[in-house]
């Protein structure tokens, strides 16, 4: 019996099934811990930095919301996390992280906005692989291109000036500039929806 094909398939299938189950179990029990660790290491420092002027009193991870922002080529949902800075339960600022397609790969941008003024507080690049010396300037929060978004209206025309918008692109890095502005615009759109859903405070 042991050299029959069906027996081999059965045994291998059982081994795979048992270990698949075990992995699912372990994954379910470690997922939250791992997610929190990654959040604390990568997102939290930037988030605290941009929210600092509002002196928020809430736990950002606990008040995190996840919103559907679209679908990828395979038809799976793409979700974006929305973080809120609250003081005495009043939402003062919001931030989200979206991915844009830059010149050298994915650009991950955090956009923080003021809920009352509907203005951009700051934008930060969390991850990028743009051309060194040109596009990679977006990683520097002091770079004029990045700084110009601070204080802009969320409804503003966030396109490059060459396309009739209000954003001055970086010379030599048009693709990066366009992608960055596009991502900021998408983030503003998402956050505006959030604010209007809650009813402007």
């Amino acid at each position, binding site marked *: 019996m042991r050299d029959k094909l069906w027996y081999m398939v059965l045994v291998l299938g059982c081994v795979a099934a048992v270990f698949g189950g*075990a992995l699912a179990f372990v994954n379910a029990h470690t997922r939250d811990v791992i997610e929190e660790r990654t959040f604390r290491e990568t997102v939290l420092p930037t988030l605290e930095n941009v929210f600092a002027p509002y002196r928020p009193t809430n736990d950002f991870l606990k008040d995190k919301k996840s919103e559907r922002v679209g679908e990828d080529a395979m038809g799976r949902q793409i979700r974006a996390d929305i973080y809120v800075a609250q003081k005495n339960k009043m939402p003062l600022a919001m931030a989200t992280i979206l991915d844009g397609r830059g010149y050298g790969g994915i650009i991950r941008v955090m956009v923080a906005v003021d809920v009352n003024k509907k203005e951009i507080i700051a934008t930060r690049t969390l991850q990028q692989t743009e051309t060194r010396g040109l596009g990679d300037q977006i990683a520097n929060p002091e770079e004029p291109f990045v700084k110009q978004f601070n204080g802009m209206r969320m409804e503003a025309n966030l396109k490059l000036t060459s396309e009739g918008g209000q954003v001055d692109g970086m010379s030599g890095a048009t693709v990066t500039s366009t992608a960055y502005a596009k991502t900021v615009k998408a983030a503003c759109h998402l956050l505006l929806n959030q604010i209007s859903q809650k009813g402007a405070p």
Partner: protein
Amino acid sequence: MKPLWQEFTKGFNAQLPPFRLVLGLCPALAVTTTVEGGLGMGIATLLVLLMSNLVISLLRNIIPNSVRIAANISVIAGFVVIVELMMKAYTPTLFNILGVFISLIVVNCIVLGRAEAFAKKNGPVRSMVDALGIGSGFTVSLVILGLVREVLGRGSITLFSEANVKFQLLPQTDGYVFRLAVEPAGAFIFLGVILFVINLRSKKEKVAQ
């Protein structure tokens, strides 16, 4: 049949993995820049070896010979991912140090070798003792290699950076590193020196007999 305790002690004598069997060299060279790396890698390998030896030994009469490699790899890979997820969740600093080498335990020849050479022919208790012996031997070897390289290379002994358990032996000057001990090439040299010492000793023993 050998007494049970000899199955354990052989992991330190005749079958000491990196020095006697010269197996598992890839992790032995890659992660031993610090004591912590060696210790973490050794313990992770020991855990995987222990669990996979147990399961493979229990299943040895069920799994047909022609699919045993596939079945063994599935078992080993399963345990490796479990260990990997646990480390990622509870010891992230160590996980960052070891990086891809945790996943590479799947193809570690020690683990697969023990499954093939021992667990599929012996009972569960004996297989676990064998795994404990070989695994501890491997851990001790990695710690020794890590100790030599870290003391010479950085003048410190790091045991667990997550809780900041670290001893600085030499006063820390700006960026002092003895490059040879830290770089991969140095790993080969130090491994070779230790191999030389051990072979010299065993040769003397043989002559004495």
